[in-house]
């Protein structure tokens, strides 16, 4: 039962992913040896680039599904979602691992990454971010550990973890809400750099709400995808529930965005054809308006393929939002100050390797651990 023999490890995709992973690892070593300047195109005006935008902001947002589903199952006792709780948490764990590794590579002096844990600087937003990453990654590991203990047959440890699961999940939910929003709060310190289309005192809330939206879609997306890849039947009721949840959160997010636009930059600011306004429009149309229109039709919410499409749209939209906040929103300022940024091939390969790592890791876990306890009975 604990070994899913239907999953083949030696597929062409797996091999390609593995090659990317190795290339990324070599590049990461190069970065450690020769520094950020040699490996990346970052500079003083572009201190944060692709790694922060995609791996950290994107990875953490993708991981939001973990705390939502864990909270729904272990705290609210919504039994329906029990079937997806393990993959959701595992997915979140990989998201956070990605973020943690990227932060390690992105900070100037990587081997001082432990400093915030020991030397608390409680008035710094970066302290909040770093302590949350550490605590929540640990929490996610604890939440995922029953699978490992089952596999290894450690009954005592399993019993212990299951007993403390509710408080651990509660703690994880608390950390997640704080962490998702604190990533937004990081950008509160650059009012002059970030375009007013994204800069707002509500940025932390927007990060949280969009992460919830993304988390629900991500869990649904990954449920459908793994059902296809690992060839088992997805639970349509679960997917319908997730789609309903996504719809509700999208409405909240849209209201928040529109309110913020009106009270901040003004509606005309998104229709003036500028670089930032086009990026804003693309993000909103692809990630919010289209999914909202599609999901508001009952026929969409009941069809697996349509839900899958909506999931892709939402994920793309929120990822683009993170890139907009992290990179394109500061582009006008940095360009005016005479600087340019396009990620170096090393940055791209490391990011690709991160994603490859998550996919491969997930696959290995699906093969050797009891990731879908309900589907195999």
């Amino acid at each position, binding site marked *: 039962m604990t070994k899913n023999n239907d999953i083949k490890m030696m597929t062409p995709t797996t091999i390609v992913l593995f090659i990317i992973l190795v290339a990324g690892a070599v590049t990461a070593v190069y970065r450690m040896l020769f520094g950020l300047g040699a490996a990346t195109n970052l500079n003083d005006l572009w201190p944060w680039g692709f790694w922060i935008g995609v791996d950290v902001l994107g990875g953490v947002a993708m991981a939001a599904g973990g705390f939502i589903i864990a909270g729904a199952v272990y705290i609210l006792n919504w039994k329906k979602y029990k079937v997806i709780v393990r993959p959701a948490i595992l997915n979140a764990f990989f998201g956070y691992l990605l973020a943690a590794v990227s932060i390690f590579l992105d900070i100037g002096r990587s081997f001082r990454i432990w400093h915030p844990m020991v030397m608390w600087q409680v008035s710094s937003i970066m302290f909040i971010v770093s302590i949350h990453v550490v605590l929540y990654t640990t929490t996610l590991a604890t939440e995922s550990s029953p699978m490992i203990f089952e596999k290894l047959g450690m009954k005592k440890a399993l019993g212990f973890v299951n007993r403390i699961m509710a408080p651990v999940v509660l703690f994880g939910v608390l950390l997640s809400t704080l962490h998702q929003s604190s990533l937004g709060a990081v950008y509160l310190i650059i009012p002059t750099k970030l375009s007013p289309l994204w800069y707002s005192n509500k940025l932390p809330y927007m990060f949280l709400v969009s992460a919830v939206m993304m988390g629900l879609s991500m869990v649904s997306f990954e449920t459908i995808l793994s059902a296809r890849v690992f060839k088992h039947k997805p639970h349509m009721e679960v997917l319908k529930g997730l789609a309903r949840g996504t719809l509700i959160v999208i409405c909240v997010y849209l209201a928040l965005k529109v309110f913020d636009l009106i009270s901040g930059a003004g509606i005309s600011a998104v229709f003036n054809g500028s670089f930032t306004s086009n990026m804003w429009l693309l993000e909103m149309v692809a990630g919010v308006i289209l999914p909202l229109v599609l999901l508001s039709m009952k026929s969409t919410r009941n069809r697996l393929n349509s839900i899958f499409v909506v999931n892709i749209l939402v994920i793309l939209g929120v990822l683009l939002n993170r*890139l907009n906040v992290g990179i394109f929103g500061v582009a006008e300022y940095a360009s005016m100050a005479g600087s*340019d940024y396009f990620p170096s091939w090393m940055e791209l390969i490391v990011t690709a390797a991160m994603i490859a790592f998550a996919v491969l890791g997930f696959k290995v876990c699906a093969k050797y651990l009891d990731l879908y306890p309900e589907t195999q009975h």
Partner: protein
Amino acid sequence: MNDQKADTSQEPVSTLDRLREQGVSRRDFLKFCTGVAVALGLPLGMGEAIAEAVANQKRPPVLWLSAQECTGCTESLLRSNHPTFEKLILELISLEYHETLLAGCGKQAEDWRVKSMKENKGRYILVVDGSIPVKDNGIYCKIGGKTAQSLLEEMGAQAAAVIAIGSCASWGGIPSADPNPTGATSAHEVLKMKGITTPVVNIPGCPPNPYNFLSTVLHLLTFRKLPELDEQARPKFAYGRLIHENCERRPHFDSGRFAVQFGDEGHRKGYCLYKLGCKGPETFANCPSILYNDVGAGAWPVGTGHPCFGCTEKGVGFTVPLHYPARPKYITPPTFFTEAYPGKPEVAPGTKALAAGVAGAVIGAAGAAMLTGLGKKDDENKDKEE
């Protein structure tokens, strides 16, 4: 005030001990003193000298006289939030008399003032806030039956130094605005009329930055002399440069980017407020570099989008209409040049390419998903069959 005085005379403990009792560590104390040294433009090592001076001396007596004023100076001083500031100011100096902060009142308070003046003759610091009415023999402001003018003359003559805090005491301020019905006059002019030669320092501002005042006091304590003053008796460390020289919006001025109306595009983008009547080009003060309330960047009038109205400058604040353009008679370069903006307000090509790539990927992926996924119906049935 009486009790406090009695306490200190009973147990002669050092300032540091007293601070420790109140929860101020040695480290906090040194930090405060170093901060003051920096505000004064002194080398960092002076922080220790200041700390020593403050900790080892008998607290100098300070009498505070309020005339035609709004208490804004006191209020802003009370809100300076360096670590436990209120305690520090009460422990650094011995505040003998201050109408807003007095514990006693009426005759008791006035008696204490007289007693303290007698005891500390020639040693105390007199702080004045508010302008002094001199019209009709100064009857427009009376304290304890005496006019503010006579009080200032009496107290100023016996003081070691006079610090005029706020624009009112420095040059007349808002009460002196046309038509000046009370004949509001600055402290140093009142003293001069009477021929009193006690040195006067002016700390104009409405209200002035509390750290300018604090730094002056500590300079006095540490070096036993007043800081270097300009021709208007203002400390040069605080009023040596135009606001326009240190303003964070100066690059916009130099590039000709102005806000012309409140809420217009330029105003939202943080452009120069010169055309809204900003008096930065003719006003000497350190507001843009020292800021207010210790809350970080932008915490001063221009930083929040309001033009400077020249409160520290005689003949500008409360005199020139608020939105009347400044007359930049002192043409000085900015103290530092911010990042050069060589390019047009256009996004650089590399970033644009990245954005195009990302946008293409998003549109491509979303489009492909919608085209292939939305039309498919068979799949669903197939799922059901399975």
